[in-house]
């Protein structure tokens, strides 16, 4: 066929082609012109109609937040629940003038003026159709008030929601923790699908550490809504039928604590008006029975949402009510470490059960004038290890500290769990510190400071100097003493329960490496000495332990307070009060078959045996059935 073709005329061919290209260009412009005309029709001529339609009849996918799991105490009492409440919400895209709306709401005293910038930020950051919660719990009066004003506030409305409620308020605040409004940082961290429709997340305590169990999974449903975002009832069911299937929310799991509210109450009452902490646990499995930090605060304020002023008040309170002293407070342990050091000394051969020291009230290192004083002026006279614990003789420990050495001291205290996080199942724990040569080398830059001095070993032997421990660490350590070296990780949560099936997942105790002491005699002797602290003829806390209907053992401690910083201002009386020594006490009972171990710290309480020991005793009384409101 190609052979038959006439010879190509390039010139006319090109002319023809250009003609066709021009034609195509015209057609192209016409076609796109049609599209543009259509766009003008839709977007300019009929714009209002479509704008109204886009507002007027929309299907909205609404997230259905899951119901948060409940938290129960050891005896099944609810310590965290969900109560229905009306909350005030604002849908940014439906508000014409955000500033004006917020100002007028503040004028009606429905929101605080200080919070306006925060709400503006929230309104701008999220999707504009997503409601911003302005107030979490409206009173009946506020609902009535707003109902009258509602037509003046397009885009603002009240909605029924479930709000977290802590029936025991301050009593459980530190252990259970609280939920608070989701922050922008939380939103980045959490799975958006799971948290769709959720306004709160656990911030501290068990609420925070068991967040993934408590929260559950969000569901969603399809709503046909009108311009105001309100659901259209009834006749839209046909439309709903055509939509994808809704998904129901999966509620969060219930959490059972090992904490006993009665014990918690006794401890809180005993600490009332003081700054301090009490931790009680079961030495046989590490279950925390009570965890109190004083002063406390009302966790419901966080769940409902408080004003900036209320929050500032909590933040600026010099007594630090928000601070969980039980896991975050670090204190020199003072003489409470003596039983542990005694075991270290026996095990390393630094001392024996018969070695006696004549205590003259002070101790000096060879070739040094410096006197390390005993708490008892004039001294204890001749003391052996048993007496040194029962009477808390400092000089005996000063002397043997030279033979144990700081590194062995560190090793043994470390085995009892002091100076490092216990790994308890709530967050925010501070490690504290048990010093060693190695630690000092890495902690200081200066050559002179990197060296370890004998004098530092001396004061470490009575739990002073660099040494810092938390009340929880001390409770765990005394539990380990009570269990003769069996060491369990402390934990607050005993079980997690599936709300549908009622199936409970028990959280088994976690046993840590034992504190191995080769000779049972050593345990017998040291624990006997602790028994005599409370129930022996010359024990430092015999006034507390004498006449009790059960046997117990303990050890007092007194810790010097680090001097107050220069720039802090207190009135004179205040300074005096805050410079007093911290009072500490560790104890367990019954002596033969320990069921409870307690650590108590009273800041500026002066006397371990006088102030802290009675608190420990009250807690043990309650737990063993001899308390005032024992049931």
């Amino acid at each position, binding site marked *: *066929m*190609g052979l038959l*073709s*006439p*010879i*190509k005329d390039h010139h006319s*061919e*090109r002319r*023809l*082609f*250009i003609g*066709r*290209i021009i034609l*195509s*260009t015209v057609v*192209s*412009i016409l*076609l*796109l012109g*049609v*599209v*543009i005309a*259509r*766009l*003008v029709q*839709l*977007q*300019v001529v*009929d*714009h209002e*109609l*479509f*704008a109204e*339609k*886009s*507002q007027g009849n*929309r*299907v*909205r*996918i609404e997230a259905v937040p899951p119901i948060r799991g409940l938290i129960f105490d050891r005896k099944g009492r609810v310590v965290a629940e969900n109560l229905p409440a009306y909350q005030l919400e604002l849908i940014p*895209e439906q508000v014409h003038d955000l500033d004006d709306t917020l100002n007028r709401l503040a004028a009606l005293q429905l929101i605080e003026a200080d919070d306006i910038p925060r709400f503006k930020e929230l309104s701008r950051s999220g*999707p*504009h*159709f997503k409601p911003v919660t302005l107030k979490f719990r409206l009173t009946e009066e506020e609902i009535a008030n707003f109902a009258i004003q509602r037509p003046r506030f397009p885009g603002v409305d009240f909605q029924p929601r479930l709000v977290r409620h802590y029936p025991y308020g301050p009593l459980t605040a530190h252990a259970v923790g609280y939920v608070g409004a989701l922050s922008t940082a939380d939103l980045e961290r959490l799975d958006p699908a799971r948290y769709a429709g959720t306004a709160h997340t656990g911030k501290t305590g068990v609420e925070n550490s068991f967040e993934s169990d408590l929260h559950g999974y969000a569901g969603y449903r399809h709503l046909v809504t009108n311009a105001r975002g309100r659901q259209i009832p009834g006749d839209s069911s*046909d*439309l709903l039928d*055509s939509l994808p299937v809704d998904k129901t929310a999966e509620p969060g799991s219930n959490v059972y604590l090992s904490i006993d509210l009665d014990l918690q109450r006794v401890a809180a009452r005993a600490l009332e008006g003081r700054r301090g902490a009490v931790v009680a646990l079961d030495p046989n499995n590490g279950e925390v029975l009570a965890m109190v930090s004083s002063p406390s605060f009302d966790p419901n304020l966080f769940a409902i949402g408080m004003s900036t002023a209320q929050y500032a008040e909590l933040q600026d309170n010099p007594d630090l009510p928000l601070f969980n002293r039980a896991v975050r407070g670090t204190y020199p342990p003072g003489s409470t470490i003596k039983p542990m050091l005694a075991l270290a000394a026996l095990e390393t051969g630094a001392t024996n059960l018969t070695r006696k020291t004549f205590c003259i009230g002070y101790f000096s290192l060879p070739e040094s004038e410096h006197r390390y004083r005993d708490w008892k002026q004039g001294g204890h006279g001749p003391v052996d290890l048993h007496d040194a614990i029962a009477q808390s003789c400092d000089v005996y420990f000063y002397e043997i500290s030279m033979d144990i050495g700081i590194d062995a001291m560190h090793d043994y205290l470390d085995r009892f769990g002091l100076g490092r996080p216990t790994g308890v199942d709530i967050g925010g724990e501070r490690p504290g510190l048990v010093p060693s040569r190695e630690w000092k080398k890495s902690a200081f830059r200066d050559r002179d400071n990197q060296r370890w001095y004998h004098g530092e070993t001396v004061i470490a032997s009575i739990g002073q100097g660099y040494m810092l421990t938390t009340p929880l660490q001390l409770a765990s350590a005394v539990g380990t003493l009570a269990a003769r070296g069996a060491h369990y990780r402390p934990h607050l949560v005993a079980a997690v329960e599936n709300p549908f099936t009622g199936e409970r997942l028990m959280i088994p105790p976690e046993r840590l490496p034992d504190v191995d002491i080769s000779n049972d005699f050593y345990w017998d002797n040291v624990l006997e000495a602790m028994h005599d602290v409370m129930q022996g003829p010359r024990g430092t806390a015999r006034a507390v332990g004498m006449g009790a209907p059960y046997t117990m053992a303990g050890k007092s401690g007194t810790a010097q307070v680090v001097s107050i910083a220069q720039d802090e201002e207190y009135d004179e009386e205040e300074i005096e009060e805050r410079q007093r020594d911290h009072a500490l006490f560790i104890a367990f009972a019954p002596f033969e078959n320990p069921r409870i171990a307690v650590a108590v710290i009273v800041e500026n309480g002066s006397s371990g045996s006088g102030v802290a020991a009675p608190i420990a005793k009250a807690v043990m009384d309650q737990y063993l059935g001899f308390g005032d409101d024992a049931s």
Partner: protein
Amino acid sequence: MPLSDTQRLLTPKAAPLSDVARLMRRLHIDGALLSGLLLICGMGLFVLYSAVGESSRLLLNQVIRLGVAFIAMLIVAQLPPDFLRRWTPWGYLAGLVLLLLVLTKGDVGQGARRWLDLGVRFQPSEAMKLAVPMMTAWYLHDRHIPPRFSQLLVIAVLIAVPTLLIARQPDLGTALLIAASGVIVIILAGMSFRLMLLLGLLAIPGAMALWTFMKDYQKQRVLTLLNPDSDPLGAGYNIIQSKIAIGSGGLFGKGWTNGSQAQLEFLPERDTDFIFAVLGEEFGLFGALTILVLYMFVIGRGLYIAVQAHDTYSRLLAGSISLTFLVYVFVNTAMVTGLVPVVGVPLPLVSFGGTSMVTLMAGFGILMSIHSHRKLLPH
């Protein structure tokens, strides 16, 4: 190619080439075309980010696809038109074989058999989008222009065979586009207007025949187009919602990522075929016109390249590629605005998706090759 002294004298104002321009020339890249494409892709990524619910993972996905497509364009641009022409019949035949393979052992996706797994999963129909106009142009290259009727019949067969094979998959949208790309070549080659009119009249009984050929969902699309409100919850849903989205956008739109229709997951297929509605809703008439102007610029540049081309094959192919691109843009925007039935045609370079993007960019690579491999003969 070095310029002669005479040429140098004739173009005294030719400034020395900058390094960038020299590199582009060496790589056979057309600067104007490249800028237009990059602007469209850039704007497309913005719209897509909003349409996929601000997912940076999906966006990155698309960026990678764009990168692959641009590399394909660059590679194709290096192949001289003569080389392409010599290999055209073989490519066309290979494409037909692959289409037959798809019909017998292809993978099924969304009720249609379009995919072929030969180590890489791909749609042979995509390759045909280029192979059909290339084959048509190849056939006409040595022949007298305008073609005679008998030659047109041969061409009709060359176009009809792949078109019918693809329609069988069934992929009516792609089949029609491929037929269009071949028909454009004949029109550019100077088919007489009388014949066009005649074929236009024949199209009426043809359409009726097609109607019986069509599947129910395809019929539905046509019916819904005529009256979308007749079926607001079924087939009309897409069109109603995309019209609401575009219309409510107004002059300047609701703002990026703020389109309530799109963001409320109200608009179906908003990241693929209906992405133009997202653009219209969030950027308004202003944004829609901007992207249309960019498309027109690219098409105009393509037609200019066609006019400048030196041989029959090159100019027919360049013209067809440019005008087919126009057909894509028109069909997609017209379908989203409710002017033509909903056929599965993505908005080129903007919609989410891979294979079609590579084909498109390879087409632009051919345009660049045609323009940059011209022999600089004085007219």
